[in-house]
């Protein structure tokens, strides 16, 4: 499938933080997840990808174009949800739709109001009276209602209750599977987005520490679960991370074949077994390795 977003060596320096040489390629119709701890650079990266902030160094091609020459056209085709959506606080939800509609070539007002109904956001309410989660839902409704080809969502599930979170994840998965949209999401990994991301980029301290397909990661990374006292000290050092549990301990590895000789005796005696690792487990091992 065609590449809809190609970023190469994106770099941006602030007084207290730098995004360093981030490259990213996103296939059309896929869901790309950008994960990392706080201050990893996720929001900075997404702002650059969505044309919200200039790209001082590196190259960026979005939907075959560039913000330098086609900002208006590109933003017509992109739905962007910032980490903390900003609205005119004194104005109503409905007012924002009326304000935004003339600027989008493919604005669908009926769909916007259907989404509000589904999200249970009162269109007549002033934004200042909305909760943080409702503001996020309003931002999502605006992003979904103009026929965007690319959705760039920064912490889209933050502040949402479990029902809306599940509904959003299902919607994103369905739209991407239908090839209607491409999705780039940034998040702390703990909110379920790790379950829908097909390609994963882990950021830490402004740099990429891991980039891979989610399936590939799940195939390669495994937990070796040991009964209490069964993990040899010599073997422990060969794991990416080791976690103590109430019934023993477990070591995370992305090279089961490479350490098979070391873990074989425990596996054979039943003192250890292999288990799947989640993306959250993998991310945590990278964060703790910092």
């Amino acid at each position: 499938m065609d590449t809809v977003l190609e970023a190469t060596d994106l770099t941006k320096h602030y007084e207290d933080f730098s995004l360093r040489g981030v490259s990213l390629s996103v296939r059309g119709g896929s869901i790309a997840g950008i994960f990392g701890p706080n201050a990893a650079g996720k929001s900075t990266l997404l702002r650059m990808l969505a044309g919200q902030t200039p790209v001082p160094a590196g190259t960026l091609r979005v939907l075959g174009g560039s913000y330098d020459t086609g900002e208006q056209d590109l933003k017509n085709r992109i739905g962007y949800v910032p980490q903390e959506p900003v609205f005119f606080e004194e104005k109503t939800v409905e007012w924002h739709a009326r304000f935004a509609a003339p600027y989008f070539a493919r604005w669908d007002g009926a769909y916007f109001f259907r989404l509000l109904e589904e999200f249970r956001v009162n269109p007549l309410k002033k934004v200042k009276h909305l909760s943080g989660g409702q503001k996020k839902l309003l931002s999502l409704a605006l992003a979904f209602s103009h026929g965007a080809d690319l959705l760039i969502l920064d912490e889209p599930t933050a502040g949402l209750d479990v029902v809306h979170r599940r509904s959003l994840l299902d919607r994103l998965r369905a739209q991407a599977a239908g090839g209607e949209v491409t999705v780039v999401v940034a998040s702390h990994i703990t909110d379920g987005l790790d379950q829908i991301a097909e390609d994963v980029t882990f950021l830490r301290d402004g740099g990429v520490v891991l980039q891979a397909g989610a399936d590939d990661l799940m195939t390669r990374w495994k937990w070796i679960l040991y009964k209490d006292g069964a993990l040899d000290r010599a073997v422990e050092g060969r794991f990416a991370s080791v976690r103590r549990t109430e019934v023993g301990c477990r070591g995370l590895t992305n090279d089961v074949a490479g350490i098979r000789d070391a873990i074989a005796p425990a596996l054979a005696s039943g003192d250890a077994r292999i288990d799947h690792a989640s993306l959250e487990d993998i991310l945590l091992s990278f964060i703790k390795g910092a």
Partner: protein
Amino acid sequence: MNPILRRSSFFYVTSAITYLAIMGRYLVTRDWTAFEIIPLFMPIWLVSALLASEDGERYAFLRTLPVPDSAVARLKFSLILLSTLFQWTLMTVVAAARMGEGIAGPATMVYLTGICSFGLLAAAAFQIAIWRHGVSRMKPIMIGAIIAGIALAILHLASLRHVQDWPAFSQVGLVEWLGGAPWISIAMLVAIALLAFRAVTRFGIRVKAASEAHL
């Protein structure tokens, strides 16, 4: 009507309407000092309108819309320019109409053109500073400038009334000299102001595009 224009122009239109009220005094007064003091309120009015307009602006929201930054910046500068032109035209027409009565002269016209040129460039500079530093950082500075402007106008008026030989801005040597050929001087001042404003506008568009103060 463009929603951004409709929203942004509100305070400028309000400011223009309230300025009309001040001009009422300008139309009926027999006091020449009105022609010295009232123009001083033009930059104050303009900067106040700018601050009121920018205080409620949400650039982070606007940037999510398919509107180029350059278009937003041009619109904002256009409002400053139109507001200035409105006030300048109004004052010039009234001053021209009262010329034969001995309370406004050619130098008065040059003086108020100079004041309007200053107001135009000051407002443009404040607009750029807001984009560069954010409205929350600029607000106290602009309020300070507005208060200083009002204080200056009041002080100047009091001094004209009570201090002998206190110089009137409209009667200083350079203004008087330019008033010798008022229409040429005015055309020249307007041309210089517009050229300077054009340069400031270009610079401002670059600042706006690179601005992250609203994020």
